[in-house]
């Protein structure tokens, strides 16, 4: 007995973990890596933005072009996110509740925009709607402007955020099976009633999660939007494009001020996301397993 008492505790570590020294080294590597690559860039945004004082910071934000960029970003997200929300719900209902031919092809096609470079995502709309594009001459004849105008920005944003909501919902709806909906339908419930009363309560947190990620990307998209926007000040500049223009004009403080708003959006997104994962872990678990 006495022997056990004097032996150092380290000897009794479980066989399924590493020695203390190795653990400390690994934790240090992880912390340093994340601090250097993730934390530092975030901190520098706020330091550069506020470095010239709060007055300068505020002036950069209430600048006419900056406000126009903020308005346009909000407008684009307000169209793109609901559009992809409706699509995501319809697609996940279709894929999770029915068995049909070509389902796996359809699932792959929905994920397709994730494997296309943002620049290419913009390019394809230029090829369809641009002045030299497939529909270009027809659009010009009818006085419709899509490329270098707001509709093009909205379309490109919808494309790059296309899979977000569907991707969160499909696995969780598949996990929940079809029995509840079948029961509701057998009892005579209308399709929409079934969705709102039976399905939605089970998927609401996953839905919110998908919308959150979709919104963050929609407001922050740069590559695709920069190709189709034409970057007309006060008209077709979204916030990320405004950041680029200010930065290239060496207006660093102003660039970082607008960037700090986007960084703030990222922080809020992460906070809500972490909260949802922590609070509703079970209801989001389906997506973790896939």
């Amino acid at each position, binding site marked *: 007995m006495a022997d056990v008492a004097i032996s150092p505790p380290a000897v009794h570590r479980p066989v399924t973990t590493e020695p203390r020294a190795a653990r400390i080294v690994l934790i240090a590597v992880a912390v340093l*890596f994340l601090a250097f690559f993730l934390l530092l860039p975030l901190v520098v945004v706020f330091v550069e933005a506020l470095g010239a004082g709060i007055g300068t910071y505020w002036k950069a934000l209430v600048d006419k072009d900056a406000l126009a960029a903020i308005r346009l970003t909000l407008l684009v997200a307000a169209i793109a996110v609901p559009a992809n929300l409706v699509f995501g719900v319809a697609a996940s209902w279709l894929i999770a509740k029915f068995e049909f031919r070509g389902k796996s092809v359809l699932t792959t096609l929905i994920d397709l925009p994730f494997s296309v470079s943002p620049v*290419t995502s913009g390019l394809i709309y230029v090829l369809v709607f641009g002045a030299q594009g497939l529909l270009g001459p027809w659009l010009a004849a009818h006085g419709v402007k899509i490329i270098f105008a707001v509709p093009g920005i909205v379309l490109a944003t919808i494309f790059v955020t296309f899979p977000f909501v569907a991707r969160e919902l499909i696995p969780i709806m598949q996990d929940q099976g079809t029995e509840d909906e079948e029961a509701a339908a057998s009892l005579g419930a209308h*399709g929409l009633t079934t969705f709102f009363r039976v399905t939605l309560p089970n998927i609401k947190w996953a839905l919110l999660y998908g919308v959150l990620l979709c919104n963050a990307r929609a407001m*922050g998209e740069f590559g695709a939007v920069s190709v189709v926007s034409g970057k007309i000040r006060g008209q077709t500049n979204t916030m990320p494009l405004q950041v680029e223009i200010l930065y290239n004009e060496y207006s660093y403080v102003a660039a970082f001020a607008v960037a700090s708003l986007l960084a703030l959006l990222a922080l809020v997104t992460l906070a809500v996301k972490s909260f949802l994962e922590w609070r509703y872990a079970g209801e989001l678990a389906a997506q973790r397993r896939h």
Partner: protein
Amino acid sequence: MAGAPSLALRKPSVIPGFGLTLGFVLTYLGLVVLIPLAALVLKTAGLGWSGFLAIASDERTIAALWLSFSLSLVAAAINAVFGLVIAWVLVRYRFPGRRILDAMVDLPFALPTAVAGIALTALYAPNGWVGQYLEPLGIKVAYTPLGILVALVFIGIPFVVRTVQPVIEDLDSEVQEAAATLGATRLDTLARIVLPTLIPALLTGFALALARAVGEYGSVIFIAGNIPYVSEIAPLLIVVKLTEYNYAGATAIATLMLLISFALLLAINLLQAWSRRGFDRG
């Protein structure tokens, strides 16, 4: 259940909405994704073989593609190593600040790429917080290919961590205990029992990080310096061609990028299938 494998489009179901959702999903998918992508294929086909090859064999195109794909491979490899360590530490160890660290991993998903781009440039510029210490050592990061690598590592890290994490959570401790009982050292157990289980997920994470890095634009162009033949990535070359109204050039490079990406992802898929089979046999 029974019955011949029918030619019917779908299995019968009492749940309503099949026709409606199928119609809507196909229409929306077609209009937003498929038709525009078809325009890319159409435009490429319109160039003809000789036209396509002329652009593809252009020295500047080759230099940009080589830079994009080689740096993306290196960045994905760095992410695979550090992503594995981070995922392991987050799942297996308990230490103060772990939750915040875990939440922070997703930052590159949430932070707009242009913001990441100017922030990294501010850090690694010769007078920046990090750059000023590297400058005397003769290491230049911003405005060189090394800067591109930094941006690509930043953008890819969550892909590896988030794919490996759930697999580490599901690791079976009994097998590890058995190995230890039979006299294996911890290092042996990690290398011969744990690592092979993680390889398929690690490859998936590597592939996702690679795919993202190849197409990445916003976070790279600020820090890259964008010198043709030296630090000009393929997506930037597409933009350059577009600003010159050279739609044929832009289209051909975009198609080339897609083709190489798909070939790489296919290779990784095969490698993954092979590593899984090897593991099952062992």
